[in-house]
């Protein structure tokens, strides 16, 4: 087993798993995790959920306590930005000019928010939401009776809206497309979430074109192209993320909407692996190359990358899954719905607080969005992992137990 120094760039979900899995896999050399945030790797999903709503303390967010890394002989180099990967001399260069030599390198640089170049984007009270620091700053602007405008009706925008309603704020969500969650779900799922958010008192405006953010030193309003001005004590912009590939690109690694890796998480340099939101990888279950933004992918691909570094080549072939919590709604997604041509519903989307949408391409089941239906999520996760076949008519019939629909 190698006694080389393994250096991991980035210190979040993928990095934490990579470090732990390297040790579990018997890596004997030094392991360092170098990240630019100030605290050890933490769970990002609660940022827009329980943490924003004030129901969780930052200590509860850590993926593992600092002591775990110490005990496992993993050096955490925090608050350090890596500015260059010098492949020739096998070292990384830090923002302060220091450098760290590596034997093997893992890139777990994740993604950063896509920014909008709107007039007024640099006013106080205008935020993006990706890091703990972002939410701490957002929280100094939240409070009962205040108005928030959220730009972007994706999962993070809608979760933020739900959390801010819990805080007693008046909330408007602006979506540029004709429906919320348009890029990721069927119309029935979008319709369901729009209805629930309206019932919870959120004002949703679709087909919205934001023209400018207005105010003095701090934001006071959001101006739309049709002339409407919405009051805002605070604006949160959530319009997607871009993979952090600049280190890889500058080092001459293959990059194409993410750092290109093979099924063993190897980049085009045999000494460098990559995992998580920053990678463009192959998914054999769906026979496509893609980039995923999920904890599942960060964690599972990190295990593959660690195995590869430990000399154990095991292809990454996990079923993608995802979750989102808003109000009392637990959405669990198994599989990838992209490319679907029909949807089968189980339960009602236009009343109540739970149903499932099953996505098909021809007669092949691709994915499920299960809302307050954990059993259906678990069943589909099992079916897609083990290759069971499905009877769509039985899926739609709630009098038939979900397990009877699969064989």
């Amino acid at each position: 087993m190698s006694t080389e120094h393994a250096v991991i760039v980035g210190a979040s979900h993928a990095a934490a798993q990579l470090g732990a899995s390297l040790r579990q896999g018997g890596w004997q050399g030094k392991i360092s995790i170098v990240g630019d945030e100030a605290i050890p790797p933490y769970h990002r999903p609660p940022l827009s959920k329980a943490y924003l709503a004030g129901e969780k303390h930052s200590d509860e967010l850590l993926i593992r306590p600092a002591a775990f890394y110490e005990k496992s002989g993993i050096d955490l180099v925090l608050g350090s930005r890596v500015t260059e990967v010098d492949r020739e001399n096998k070292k990384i260069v830090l923002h302060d000019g220091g450098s760290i030599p590596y034997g093997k390198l893992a890139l777990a640089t994740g993604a950063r928010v896509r920014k909008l170049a709107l007039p007024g984007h640099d006013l106080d009270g205008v935020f993006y939401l990706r890091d703990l620091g972002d939410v701490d700053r957002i929280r100094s602007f939240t409070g009962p009776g205040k108005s928030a405008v959220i730009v972007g009706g994706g999962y993070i925008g809608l979760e933020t809206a739900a959390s801010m309603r819990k805080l007693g704020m008046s909330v408007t969500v602006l979506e540029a497309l004709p429906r919320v969650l348009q890029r990721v779900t069927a119309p029935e799922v979008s319709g369901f979430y729009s209805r629930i958010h309206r019932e919870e008192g959120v004002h949703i405006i679709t087909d919205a074109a934001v023209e400018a953010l207005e105010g003095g030193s701090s934001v006071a309003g959001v101006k739309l192209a049709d002339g409407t001005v919405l009051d805002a004590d605070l604006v949160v912009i959530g319009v997607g993320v871009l993979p952090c590939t600049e280190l890889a690109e500058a080092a001459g690694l293959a990059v194409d909407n993410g750092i290109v890796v093979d099924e063993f998480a190897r980049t085009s340099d045999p000494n460098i692996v990559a995992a998580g939101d920053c990678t463009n990888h192959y998914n054999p279950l769906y026979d496509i190359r893609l980039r995923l933004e999920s904890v599942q992918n960060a964690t599972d691909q990190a295990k593959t990358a660690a195995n590869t570094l430990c000399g154990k080549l095991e292809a990454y072939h996990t079923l993608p899954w995802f979750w989102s919590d808003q109000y009392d709604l637990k959405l669990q997604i198994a599989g990838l719905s992209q490319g679907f041509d029909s949807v089968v519903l189980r339960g009602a989307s236009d009343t109540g607080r739970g149903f499932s949408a099953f996505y098909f391409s021809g007669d092949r089941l691709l994915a499920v969005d299960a809302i307050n239906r954990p059993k259906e999520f678990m069943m589909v996760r099992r079916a897609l992992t083990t290759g069971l076949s499905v009877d769509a008519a039985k899926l739609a019939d709630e009098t038939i137990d979900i397990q009877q629909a699969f064989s």
Partner: protein
Amino acid sequence: MPSVKFISHSGVESEVHVASGTTVMHAAVDNGVSGILADCGGACSCATCHCFVDEAWLAKVGEPDDVEAQMLDFVLDPQPNSRLSCQITVSDELDGLVIMLPESQI
């Protein structure tokens, strides 16, 4: 601080001490006890933190809620004493709790 004893599928025991209010899942993950993956970090969304509660402790630990029970139906090797460890909170009442870990989570 209450203690929790984990027994791996192959019979290896590890005892950890954690503050009251910690979940059994965190008691394992924070102390490097393997066998619990906890991919969702305790959001009751992944079912990769499955464990078995020692019979002697079942009554004190209590029953899973509906969401948890539905997920438990689909874990590998579900048993009447199956629980998701992120949904059990350690307290002084549960000092000495014994938890068995499954062979595999997925």
